[in-house]
């Protein structure tokens, strides 16, 4: 990131290569359309390029930082366009795909981590996983979720917190390792 900060395009390209799939996957999962996901990733990486100086390694990994930008950008895109009726990634039947050549040790480890997170999310009571998914991937506010589910706001917020706490227990240190 030091080099990106100094305007090194090759260093930026390395950062892109490392994190583009995770970034695009998150953007696509959230927005549900390829074009919007591409715009979100483009905006996120360009803002990263233009503001690399704001990365503070004491606050987490580059990956977390990049994905944080993507998440915020995707929420903006969702709330701007109110495309909450968008098609979901699963609606388009897109399967998880990584080229065989990309299955490096890192990718294998990443897949194991992904499985662990999905398992932890799936293990939650449905009412907790639902509010977490609607909030994080759907970009909905807790007020919108409360209205959608016809549930009191306090209950929705409580479910979010309890669900995340349970996931923390399930993840057994993965969260700390990724931080």
């Amino acid at each position, binding site marked *: 990131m030091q080099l990106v900060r100094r305007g090194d395009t090759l260093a930026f390209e390395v950062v892109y290569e490392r994190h583009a799939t995770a970034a695009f996957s998150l953007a696509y999962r959230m927005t549900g359309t390829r074009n919007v996901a591409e715009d979100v990733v483009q905006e996120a990486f360009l803002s990263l390029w233009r503001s690399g100086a704001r990365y503070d390694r004491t606050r987490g990994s580059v990956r977390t930082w990049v994905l944080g930008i993507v998440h915020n950008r995707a929420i903006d895109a969702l709330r701007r366009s109110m495309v909450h009726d968008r098609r979901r*990634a699963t609606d388009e039947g897109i399967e998880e795909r990584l080229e065989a050549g990309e299955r490096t040790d890192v990718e294998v480890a990443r897949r194991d*981590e992904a499985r662990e997170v999905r398992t932890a999310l799936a293990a939650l009571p449905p009412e907790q996983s639902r509010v977490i998914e609607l909030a994080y991937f759907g970009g909905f506010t807790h007020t919108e979720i409360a209205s959608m589910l016809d549930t009191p706001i306090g209950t929705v917020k409580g479910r979010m917190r309890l669900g995340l706490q349970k996931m923390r227990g399930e993840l057994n240190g993965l969260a700390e390792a*990724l931080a």
Partner: protein
Amino acid sequence: MTCEHRDDAGAWVLGALSDDERERFAGHLPGCEVCMREVAELQMVADTLPLAAPQIAPPPELKERIMSVVRAEAAVMQAAGPAADAAPAAEAPGEGAAARPGPEPAAPERERPRKKRRSWWRLPSLALRPIPAAVAAAVLIAIGVGGGVLISGGDEARTVQAQVVAPSSPGARAALTTDDDRATLRVRGFPAPPPGRVYQVWLKRPGRPPDPTTALFTTRGGDATVEVPGSVAGVDQVLVTAEPDGGSQEPTRDPVIIASPA
């Protein structure tokens, strides 16, 4: 020890608080040990959630699009020298949801370089600088007095007339057509940029300096049609300035075209 705001911690790390609530919670956090601890623990979990998304490789052309902008901007920065290098980063926009939790908001911003005068995009409104009345009529030609008036529209593309400000171009017109979040700018009867300069399109979002685009153009016979790169969602003004060849990271001149997307 507990806190009545503790339940907000989950919504906070998930980005699910409304703007007002987010602001309030951000103000509350620094003074509340309970909530700070809660946020720290839950944030770690929230940071793992992207892993739950099915992994999909981005299209290769996306990288090309991004890298072409990055290389162009790097070339501009290099050409401008180290003094210009600091400006864009210092002015780097807060990310869209700058107040949301995450890695960006807390990161320190670089000190802004001192400028001799405030640039036009930092003025309270994006009005052009006042022009002495005596020369105003000769210099300022606003075509379509109701710049920004919707002149065609529908469910799909919508076109608005842009405000054109150009010396010696009495017949100049410009219109911006937006389709979903894409925009196309068309200019007619517009003079060529001054020697050594090129027109550059900028995207202005509320409360932020204009973002440069890679849309650089000149006019042929007074006409040009320019696809505005990227999304114009959230953009309140599309601007055009005459910049040195290769474009700039921040505007060096006042806008000659101002369009407000429909």
